[in-house]
């Protein structure tokens, strides 16, 4: 009995001395979404996430007339784009993922008003708003009217959303860019840290303004970027693009790559010659691109007496041979010569002649156009077939040319402006001073039509292989013309020998006519049986605006598909 009472007392005492604990805890040794954004390093890590490569997709050059891939076309160049297409679905999803993350950061910064000083809060908010604006700019420039929100959505309200007019979103984009430009620094110092700077914001604002023909806004944004005096053109055009060039002064906004950190541009074999271990220009420059480079006298190839279709690389703008491998020049350790009679070429490492696998007489899958990309490629690409070239999203030459384009469209033309922009970029290519006008073909005059044409050709020569051409032909409404022309290349070897080589017509059997927009016309040469049609391109006008992903339309009846799809 006594024991039982003692036990009872012990138990009741035990109950009185225990207590209730709240088990709704946050983990102590890992991050949790309830407690994140509590200090600067956590906010910085969240901001770093916004710079993932997938959130900054580039308009593929294979959607443009600068590119060939043997006899293939893409959904954009063969007119089969629809709401189920993989690329449009991925871009849409990733863009909105980035927007949701940027909005989450902004929401949490609002909540942390008392944790950080105002200047720091503004800087972080500026960065998040810059990224959000850039994502919406990408969405409206590709899809037209899209869904717009600045908070964080929950499921019920998301099903009720409809499209917002792209002009309304554009205004919000400008507001975000303006806020970011006022709060972000001009530079982050000499680190490899490539977060968005004031100049990057201004340049990206100019780009979207130009796309929507807000020329005054574009002009002012580009000028503000130039007036920061934070950037300069890199001295050597070729070296600028090599993987060893890290964070050059010309870079305004980019994503660094690093072989050490396993962040590289993917498999490089498509771009590399067969002799150097690649697939032999499975992807290659197009003949239209080769023909678009002006001659050293500033004239297009169908007007210049300096152009020789037998030796098409001679007397051309220096960027031609910097972008495309010239025939009979050393390339990645071998002599590059696609002529079918060059059965053996020299291996410069051993000094011995080897079978030339870069000509179609030896290898049927060598370059169908005989052309090979050169820009940015060097031995860094062939040693392990991974490349760590920085991704240039915006460089200073683009800022200068955007300023020029805006000024020309506004008809505010004077020679000083041309010298500061187009001529400066061109003189850099020729490696001479802008003022030294005898050494390069300077652009002069005040005729708006002529200067518009000169500016557009300058952009094509300067930005080949940099994912700029597609946006240019969309913005100038040239896509419906140039992408409805077919892709042409060399005849197959037997016919080539008979019809081109024997009569002494290697390389271009005839000089193609260059139309008013600087684009080559090959159809007559094809009709004469002297070149081969590699693929038929097809571009319906509806494709200026991409379709919205089908499944979005199928689950939300408030969304309607873009017209034509």
């Amino acid at each position, binding site marked *: 009995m006594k024991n039982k009472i003692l036990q009872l007392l012990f138990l009741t005492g035990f109950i009185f001395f225990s207590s209730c604990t709240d088990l709704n805890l946050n983990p102590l040794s890992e991050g949790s979404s309830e407690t994140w954004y509590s200090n600067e390093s956590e906010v910085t890590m969240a901001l770093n996430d916004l710079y993932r490569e997938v959130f900054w997709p580039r308009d593929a050059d294979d959607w443009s007339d600068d590119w060939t891939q043997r006899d293939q076309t893409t959904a954009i160049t063969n007119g089969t784009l629809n709401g189920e297409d993989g690329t449009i679905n991925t871009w849409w999803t990733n863009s909105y993922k*980035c927007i*949701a*993350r940027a909005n989450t950061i902004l929401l949490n910064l609002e909540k942390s008003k008392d944790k950080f000083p105002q200047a720091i809060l503004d800087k972080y908010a500026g960065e998040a708003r810059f990224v959000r604006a850039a994502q919406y700019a990408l969405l409206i420039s590709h899809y037209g009217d899209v869904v717009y929100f600045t908070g964080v959505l929950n499921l019920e309200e*998301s*099903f009720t*959303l409809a499209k917002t007019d792209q002009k309304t979103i554009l205004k919000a984009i400008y507001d975000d860019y303006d806020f970011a430009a006022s709060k972000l620094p001009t530079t982050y110092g000499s680190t490899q840290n490539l977060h968005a700077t004031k100049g990057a914001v201004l340049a990206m604002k100019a780009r979207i303004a130009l796309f929507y023909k807000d020329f005054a806004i574009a002009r002012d944004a580009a000028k503000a970027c130039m007036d920061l005096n934070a950037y300069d053109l890199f001295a050597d055009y070729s070296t600028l693009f090599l993987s060893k060039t890290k964070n050059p002064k010309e870079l305004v906004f980019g994503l660094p790559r690093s072989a050490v950190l396993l962040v590289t541009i993917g498999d490089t074999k498509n771009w590399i010659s067969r002799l150097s271990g690649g697939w032999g220009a499975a992807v290659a420059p197009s003949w239209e691109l080769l023909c678009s480079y002006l001659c050293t006298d500033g004239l297009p190839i169908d007007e210049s007496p300096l152009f020789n279709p037998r030796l098409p690389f001679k007397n051309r703008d220096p960027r031609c041979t910097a972008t495309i491998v010239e025939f009979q020049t050393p390339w990645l350790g071998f002599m590059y010569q696609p002529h079918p009679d060059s059965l053996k070429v020299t291996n410069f490492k051993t000094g011995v002649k080897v079978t030339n696998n870069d000509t179609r007489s030896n290898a049927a899958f060598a370059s169908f156009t005989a052309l090979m990309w050169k820009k940015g490629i060097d031995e860094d690409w062939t040693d392990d077939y991974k490349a760590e070239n920085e991704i240039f999203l915006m460089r200073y030459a683009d800022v200068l040319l955007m300023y020029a384009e805006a000024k020309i469209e506004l008809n505010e033309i004077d020679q000083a402006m041309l010298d500061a922009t187009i001529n400066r970029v061109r003189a850099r290519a020729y490696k001479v001073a802008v003022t030294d006008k005898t050494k390069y073909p300077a652009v002069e005059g005040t005729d708006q039509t002529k200067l518009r044409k000169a500016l557009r050709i300058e952009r094509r020569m300067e930005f080949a292989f940099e994912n700029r051409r597609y946006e240019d032909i969309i913005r100038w409404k040239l896509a419906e013309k140039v992408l409805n022309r077919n892709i042409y290349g060399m005849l197959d070897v037997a016919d080539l020998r008979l019809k081109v080589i024997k009569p002494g017509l290697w390389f271009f059997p005839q000089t193609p006519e260059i139309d008013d927009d600087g684009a080559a016309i090959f159809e007559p040469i094809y009709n004469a049986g002297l070149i081969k049609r590699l693929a038929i391109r097809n571009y319906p006008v509806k494709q200026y605006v991409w379709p919205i992903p089908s499944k*979005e339309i199928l*689950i*939300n009846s408030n969304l309607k*598909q873009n017209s034509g799809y």
Partner: protein
Amino acid sequence: MLLALEIPDYIGFDNPDQNTGKMNTKGWETEIGWNDKIGELGYSVSANISDFKSVMGDLGGTEFLGDQIKKKGSEFNEWYGYVSDGLFQTDADLAASPKFNTAVKVGDVKYLDISGPNGVPDGKISPEYDRKLLGGSLPRYMYGANIKLDYRNFDFSMILQGVGKVTTRLEGLMIQPLMENWGSVPKILDGTSWSKYNTEAQNLAAKYPRLTQNNRGSNYLMSDYWLFDGAYLRLKNITFGYNLPQVWAQKVSLQKVRVYASASDILTFNKYPKGWDPEVSSSGYPITASYVFGLSVTF
């Protein structure tokens, strides 16, 4: 069920698994067997057949699985695609009909315009409005049979197995020509495809569209053009065996000795293109026939 129901992409998150949904499955099965002996021949026969159908109830959303779908009222993983109407045979027909894209030419698959944003046909073929449910993808009327015979020291058994009806799809790897732009043309397309070198009569009888790589995006879409009956009957196993007479076995101090020959998966009757197996995916290694000879000894 845990279903990754589709939420709008613009929320910025992947489809989460939701514990949702009702599914109603109804079915039946029957088995019958008989064994008996006629003189010295003993026999045993059994057969079974079963069937079921699963229909989705209210799911709270839709789960898209590419060519198949789960939504309220559909079967489980029902085919979801366009409705076809043969091939385009004339330029006039091509010009007058809605097309999937501007690359469609005579000889390509023709689709029907079922609906549009306003609920009526809109003259365009689009993924959002012109796809519908095309029938269940799960097998129906699955059956099997088992026959055993024994006569004196010989024994024989045979197992059959099959599916009575299943709507399945001719996959790209089976019938798509020029894949990756350097692939070759599958043999079944030879002489059975639409071609500009054919006569008009041959083209009207053509089973497959013109050989194209450029317009594969239109011809090889999920539609009823590519659905066929994947029913099959498989001779799963056939075995002959012989038991040595007891007297002989005992002479060598063994209880029982049996020799046998067995063959598995040697014959399948089905409508698949030659080389593909009804039970394996189009890119999987097919079920191979095997022949086994054996000796079984009991001490």
